[in-house]
């Protein structure tokens, strides 16, 4: 291999699936889907108090794993790679340090890892996991928003049709649902804290929506 990050098609063929480190060196700065909104400046200039706080966790590694939940070998492989078992109960999530896994479907999980580790993890999966599965890097296609604050539930009630009562939506629960006229993956990370994973092309729409819908509570941007 001439370049560690780039395999030839022949090498890829050997793995049956193409894997590529998609992240360039540190001299090139990536732009999250909300780059144009310049949240850093808003965080500096905007209000410091309000009922809803928003922070973007950008440029993380997003990996979609599809595999067979009844295949013990595959489950074991996941644990070897991530140090945590795949959550098999519907709508649950699991974490191990910077790694987090969300149940998306009976055969689908969304894994978030630090941005620079995506290729590493992907490669480890390819080494460790056998049988029929797919692993797709979708890091460029989404971003993560963290919403918190005293009015966060009231805000989300205007956005998604999910019952957010903590009896029904405890910390750790994750759902994929409609977000106004887009979609989002929503996970509760605290009593008044939620994680939203949204698609790149809809990010501006959701950003506009959140600003509009949170007006009565006051929106604080954090960076």
């Amino acid at each position: 291999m001439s370049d560690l990050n780039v395999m030839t098609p022949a090498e890829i063929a050997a793995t049956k699936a193409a894997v590529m480190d998609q992240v360039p060196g540190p001299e090139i700065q990536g732009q999250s889907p909300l780059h144009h909104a310049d949240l850093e400046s808003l965080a500096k200039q905007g209000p410091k108090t309000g009922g809803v706080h928003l922070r973007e966790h950008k440029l993380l590694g997003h990996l979609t794993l599809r595999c067979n939940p009844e295949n013990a070998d595959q489950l074991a492989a996941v644990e070897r790679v991530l140090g945590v078992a795949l959550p098999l109960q519907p709508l649950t999530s699991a974490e191990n340090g910077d790694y987090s896994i969300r149940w998306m479907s009976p055969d689908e999980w969304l894994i978030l890892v630090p941005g620079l580790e995506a290729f590493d993890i992907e490669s480890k999966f390819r080494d460790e996991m056998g049988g029929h599965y797919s692993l797709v890097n979708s890091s460029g296609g989404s971003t993560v928003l963290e919403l918190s604050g005293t009015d966060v539930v009231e805000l989300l009630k205007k956005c998604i049709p999910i019952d957010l009562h903590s009896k029904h939506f405890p910390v750790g629960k994750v759902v994929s649902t409609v977000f106004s006229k887009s979609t989002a993956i929503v996970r509760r990370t605290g009593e008044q804290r939620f994680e939203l994973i949204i698609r790149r092309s809809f990010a501006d729409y959701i950003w506009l929506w959140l600003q509009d819908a949170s007006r009565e509570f006051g929106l604080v941007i954090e960076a």
Partner: protein
Amino acid sequence: MFHIYCPHCAEYREEEEFHAAGQAHIPRPLDPEACSDKEWGEYMFFRKNPRGIHHELWVHAAGCRKFFNMTRNTQTYEIKEVYKIGEQPSVVAE
């Protein structure tokens, strides 16, 4: 608006997350070339469309993206059951 139990997510969700994909249990003919135009046309277009108990295909489009079957009364809109692809309904029309 329907309140639909997704058999994969194992909870009720709002209809907005789903959409209907027509009558269930219409297998694609195994040998299409052996079908007459009439048989092929019936496979593609002709439907039971009952007033009453109906078995239909739905997909949890904004959720787990899985298709599943639903037995529903098309008059009262009561959902009698949902069941996974490959399973058979337990509630059927008289």
